[in-house]
């Protein structure tokens, strides 16, 4: 599904990703953990095509295609989805309008027909309540006046509707209360499938209790410095990142 080779990326003069390698096969869930500032969000932005970043070396292949050759909109249509660490508020664009525009834009890019209004409404009515998204939140501007947890749930609603191939979840657990964590994890797990891969960025083991990963990676200073099974997350919870400070420097 995703194959990242020797990825170097910078913002301005600042090189953040420094030769990152990562492979995620179809259907697998990989977690990335790592200290603040190690470049986890940067990786998620570079993969989803945020214009501020410059890739200076390396390659990213997505389902065999050169992901870096596509712009952000085309990557989304190709099936990349980023659940933002800090979802953006967009006053004046109703959440419903936005959801529908996004679905239709992706369908159009894939040469499919637009979704009809009744089908769209039916779909949203079926999915939104499970994630605790009220009618009022659908009518409001995108994320406007949403609590931190509500924003995260709205990200998962978008992901559910858009059915991406690769889901990148950047600290989706932060800001969630215990119940919301379950709701969101349930929503994510419902999307697990042999055809869909996930990259879950988190600081905490507790999310990985709910969304059990196939592989856990440790990121440090812009590189993957260790990979292992789910037990690696438990180990990190115990000992922190101190061990990586020297060898990755």
């Amino acid at each position, binding site marked *: 599904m995703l194959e990242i080779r020797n990825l170097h990326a910078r913002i301005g003069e600042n090189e953040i990703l420094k030769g990152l390698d990562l492979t995620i096969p179809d259907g697998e869930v990989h977690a990335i953990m790592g200290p603040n500032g190690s470049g986890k969000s940067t990786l998620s932005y570079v993969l989803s*095509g945020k214009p501020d970043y410059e890739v200076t070396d390396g390659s990213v292949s997505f389902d065999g295609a050169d992901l870096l050759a596509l712009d*952000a909109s085309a990557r989304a*249509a190709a099936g990349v989805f980023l659940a933002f660490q800090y979802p953006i508020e967009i006053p004046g664009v109703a959440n419903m309008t936005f959801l529908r525009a996004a679905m239709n*834009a992706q369908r159009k890019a894939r040469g499919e027909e637009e979704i009809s209004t009744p089908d769209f409404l039916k779909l949203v009515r079926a999915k939104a309540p499970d994630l605790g998204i009220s009618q009022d939140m659908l009518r409001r501007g995108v994320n406007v006046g949403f609590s931190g947890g509500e924003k995260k749930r709205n990200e998962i609603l978008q992901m559910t509707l858009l059915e991406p191939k690769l889901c990148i979840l950047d600290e989706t657990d932060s800001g969630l209360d215990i119940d919301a964590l379950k709701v969101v994890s349930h929503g994510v797990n419902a999307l697990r499938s042999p055809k869909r891969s996930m990259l879950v960025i988190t600081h905490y083991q507790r999310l990985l209790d709910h969304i059990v990963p196939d592989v856990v990676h440790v990121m440090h200073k812009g590189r993957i410095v260790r990979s292992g099974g789910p037990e690696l997350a438990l180990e990190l919870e115990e000992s922190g990142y101190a061990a990586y400070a020297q060898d990755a420097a």
Partner: protein
Amino acid sequence: MTINVRPARTAAEEAIAAALEASIATEAGQGRIAELRRAARDAFLSHGLPSRRVEEWKYTDLRAAIRDVPNRAPAPGTVEDLEAAPFVPAVPNAGRILFVNGVLSRAGSDFAALSEGVTALPLDTAIAAGDPLADRINALSPSRYDGPLALNTGFLGEGVALRVDAGVKAARPVHIAHAFPGSEAVSGFTRTVVVVGEGAEVTLVETFAGRDGVAYQSNHAVELVVGDGAVVNLVRIQEEGDAAFHFGTLMLELGREAKLNLFALAQGSALARYNVYGRFEGTSAHAGIRGATLARGRQHSDTTLVIDHAVAGGESRELFKTVLADDAHGVFQGKIVVRRAAQKTDGRMMSQSLLLSDRAEMDNKPELEIFADDVQCGHGATAGALDRSMLFYLRSRGLPEKEAEMLLIQAFLGEAVEYVENADLRDLLIERISGWLEKRAA
């Protein structure tokens, strides 16, 4: 008093002066109207076209911009009326008055079929019949010389006079449509006089549209008297052809507890100036004066307001949104005057602009002139580009860049459009704005 050392007349000014003389000579020379025309001609002869040396015209120099002045068109026939159709947007449920190439189309207008309690007369008929509406002509004109308004008065003749009887709640909007379908450049000078009686309510829609590539000049002035406790909703849609010059003037008087809710959309013409003179004559009146301007290419679009609070307790809200692409130039000048007697005035003015290109330019000039001590007045202006993080968020969900931009621009303008209370008209405005945005994106 400034000493008026006039530079030599330009060729256009000479031509206008000659046309004014000719027009005045041929028009019936009776009474007050003839005097108004002559006074306007005299004012034009001494001031000419306003140049950037005149403060209010600093950003919109008509002396430099106006190179010639085309002739006025003859009265439209069936052919012209048919040609006009594509330039007349459909306004749901409205009764219509139609001007074609700057001349009233009697056949294309529903004089007899407006709402109960709403009377409309061709302006010349009102003048000839000595209707009291004709006495309102120029009753609200500003004391300072205004070039386009002087021309509008000098060539006075075409127009419509409307009366809404006291207490009448007009069932249907009145749509005053100005179409310039002709492929030959003409000048149109039209006037609308509206007197809305005590406690009456009416919705007026003015539309302006014309053929692209034709350098016609459209000059329209409205005099609007909103009686005590009356409510007027006024929506204006300016979509003149891309080579046209558009001059619009609104002279407004608000009675006691009167209410005006204006929305002015400007997205056409090569050069446009919309001048609003609003005067609070009765206490505790309310004016919402809002609008949206969209300009691209080398378009120049100027909105200038003078809101005069002459009496106590008035409330005014001005909100103008401007979207500029390419090399477009936007101007917003807004002046709120609060006279000594106008205690408890509450005036808020805001101009916000969105610049879609580095070459686009916005000039804002807000002014407060306050002579009363117990008032709340404020103004603000912002300018900026589209929010990059919002754009990326939308694109990360699959929206193509242009579509993402469009959603954000619509959201920006929506904050002003939402004040239009009539849902049909709100939809109409949104549709026209979307049309502009889609054309730009294509």
